[in-house]
């Protein structure tokens, strides 16, 4: 494989990412799945990078899950998104940053729709005004939160206490990067690196010392896909998607999987447990799984935050093998304590997946 071929493509897909004053909107599901990730994004931007980031407590879902599940009409979705933009405008911000990939795709889709069909935008403005009395400016810059971390990957790298390097061997950690489908597949020009060889996560991995693995099913869906998961009868397909990816990446012996979507880390993490229970198959070494991280979690590890403050204990696949490789210390006795130091209870150990 010629990496220079990829670099040539990456050059064609560079997007403008605002460098300060972000209006942040959260994901509907990430706070449950990976509770510390969004908090870590705030900490990194505010405390590590000294940036201005703001969220308005009145913001809601973008309705993306409902939209993609065909239960919320596009007109309604557009009006809800317009309300989010109104909150940004009222808060005095212009740079809109989303935590969720589906939201990012949806905001992009709506802004593109309005660009090509101004009469639709006018109608949405009218609807919003009638319904809420609000008006809005469109964002001058739209980015996904992973774009922002990508933009500051060098600054984070300069502050890094740990790198993506195996402490024992000195070799770069082998990293799988998995991009959420809605990040750039619909609008390749809106994602760093485009749709086929996205660079947004690969850039972080390279900057922080790791090595990116290009495996055959790299582009395949993680298995989330709303219709695959929300419809119970389709969940076997969801699991099959994840299994196809694990089978494809396993020969490359990845040390971790890095993701930028709410659904991908959830499914790539939880389905490893499910597959191990169903088939006795584990995809890491010695019965271990392959740790799956969000970009905020990985940035937090690199910056030296405590793994349990990053919420890694709620992952189904234990992160300890990765922490050991990176040389990150951790206190196993604190793993299942809450922030007040009380025990949250220790989960039952899986049948096959190595538990710590």
């Amino acid at each position, binding site marked *: *494989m*010629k990496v220079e*071929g*990829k670099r*040539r*493509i990456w050059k064609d897909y560079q997007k403008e990412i605002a460098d300060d004053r972000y209006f942040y909107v959260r994901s509907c599901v990430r706070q449950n799945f990976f509770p510390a990730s969004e908090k870590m994004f705030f900490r990194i931007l505010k405390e590590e990078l000294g940036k201005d980031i703001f969220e308005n407590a009145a913001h809601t879902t973008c309705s993306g899950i409902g939209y993609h599940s065909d239960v919320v009409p596009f007109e309604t979705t557009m009006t809800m998104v317009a309300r989010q933009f109104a909150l940004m405008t009222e808060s005095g911000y212009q740079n809109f940053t989303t935590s969720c990939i589906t939201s990012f795709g949806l905001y992009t889709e709506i802004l593109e729709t309005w660009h090509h069909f101004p009469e639709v935008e006018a109608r949405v403005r009218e609807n919003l005004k009638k319904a809420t009395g609000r008006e809005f400016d469109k964002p001058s810059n739209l980015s996904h939160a992973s774009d922002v971390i990508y933009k500051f990957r060098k600054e984070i790298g300069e502050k890094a206490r740990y790198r993506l390097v195996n402490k024992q061997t000195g070799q770069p950690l082998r990293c799988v990067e998995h991009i959420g489908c809605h990040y750039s597949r619909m609008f390749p020009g809106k994602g760093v690196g*485009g*749709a*086929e*060889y996205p660079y947004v996560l690969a850039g972080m991995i390279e900057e922080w010392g790791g090595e990116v693995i*290009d*495996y*055959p*099913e*790299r*582009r395949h869906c993680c298995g989330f896909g709303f219709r695959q998961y929300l419809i119970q009868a389709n969940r076997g397909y969801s699991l099959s998607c994840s299994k196809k990816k694990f089978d494809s990446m396993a*020969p*490359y012996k990845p040390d971790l999987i890095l993701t930028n979507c709410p659904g991908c880390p959830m499914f790539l993490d939880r389905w490893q447990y499910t597959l191990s229970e169903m088939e006795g198959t584990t995809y890491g070494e010695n019965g271990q799984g392959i740790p799956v991280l969000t970009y905020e979690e990985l940035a937090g590890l690199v910056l030296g935050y405590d793994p349990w403050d990053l919420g890694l204990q709620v992952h189904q696949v234990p992160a300890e093998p990765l922490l050991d490789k990176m040389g990150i210390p951790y206190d196993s006795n604190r793993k299942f304590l809450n922030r007040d130091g009380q025990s949250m209870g220790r989960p039952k150990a899986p049948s096959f997946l190595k538990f710590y």
Partner: protein
Amino acid sequence: MGNRWVAPKRLLFSNSIKMDPQVIIIGAGIAGLTAAGALAEKGHHVLILEKEAQPGGHVAQWDRLFPSRRPGSEVLDHIRKIMDGRVEIKPGIRINGIIAHDQDFTVLTEEGTSYTGQALLIASGFRLFQAERKEEYGYGIYDNVITSAEVETVFKQGKKLLTSKGTLPQRVALIHCVGSRDEKVGNLYCSKVCCVTGVKQAIEIKEQLPQCEVFSFYMDMRMYDRHFEELYFEAQKQWGVQFIRGRLSECSEAPDQSLIIKTEDTLTGRPLRMIVDLVILLVGFVPEPETGKLVEMLGLSTGEDGFILPSDEHYNDNLTTVPGVFLAGAVKGPATISNTIADARAAALQIDSWLKTKP
């Protein structure tokens, strides 16, 4: 009169012009060379300006031609014989201006020289689609993804078609319509020659590597010209080439550098995943960017496909809206070699007629 134009024996380049030419031809591919020969036969002074170091255009790079599989060099040799000693070719020319006068045209080059002629024939051809633009196919990234042009180079050098590791491929996939009929890359048109080139190359691969399985992934097999359909049948019946109706969705590299391709067999309605050793992309035609500059200099028009529009697509296919400026060959869109030669001869007749009636 023809003796004044020196190009002895082969298409060699002369450094001197004996006198002002009557016709300046831009492009020394088969269109330009054929038109030059035809005009020289009629006694006109012709000068060809060529941007490359050697004449012959794409045909000079091609090993054998469809449907007969005669060597491309035969066609060039034939054209060369007609031209011998009668046409001058200036290689390595970069044009940076054209001045239209009342009775003639002056072509200015980046080197600071100028050439004046009474008629101008644009025969600057096409460029092959840059396969890198179909990013999902991995050309320029995966070592065993190559183009149809590279296959011709291998055959022309008399070499065996091998994988990047130097092994004989056991399975080869030919991918049709790369850069053609593809809204994603902005080319809605058919490149006309890729289907039959794919059939020809499939047969040639089987001839060279009988043990190799060859698969062709196509949208439609456009076997429109004489002997094309027969060649298509030969590929299936005699050589066992498997034609699968489906467009490639993506190509990935396996740890052993073989390639995993995904497509759909649209005749059975099933998704299909296959491991092959080589993927050959049948790249189509795109307008030559240098021609775009000529279009601007002369105030010509192009279609949405970017190729030059003639003044009338039925009656004046070789004329432009600028009197004295003519077109030949693939500057007007994808064309076979036979069509290009016929078109270049037609252009020569139009130019001859125009020079004779010119005040």
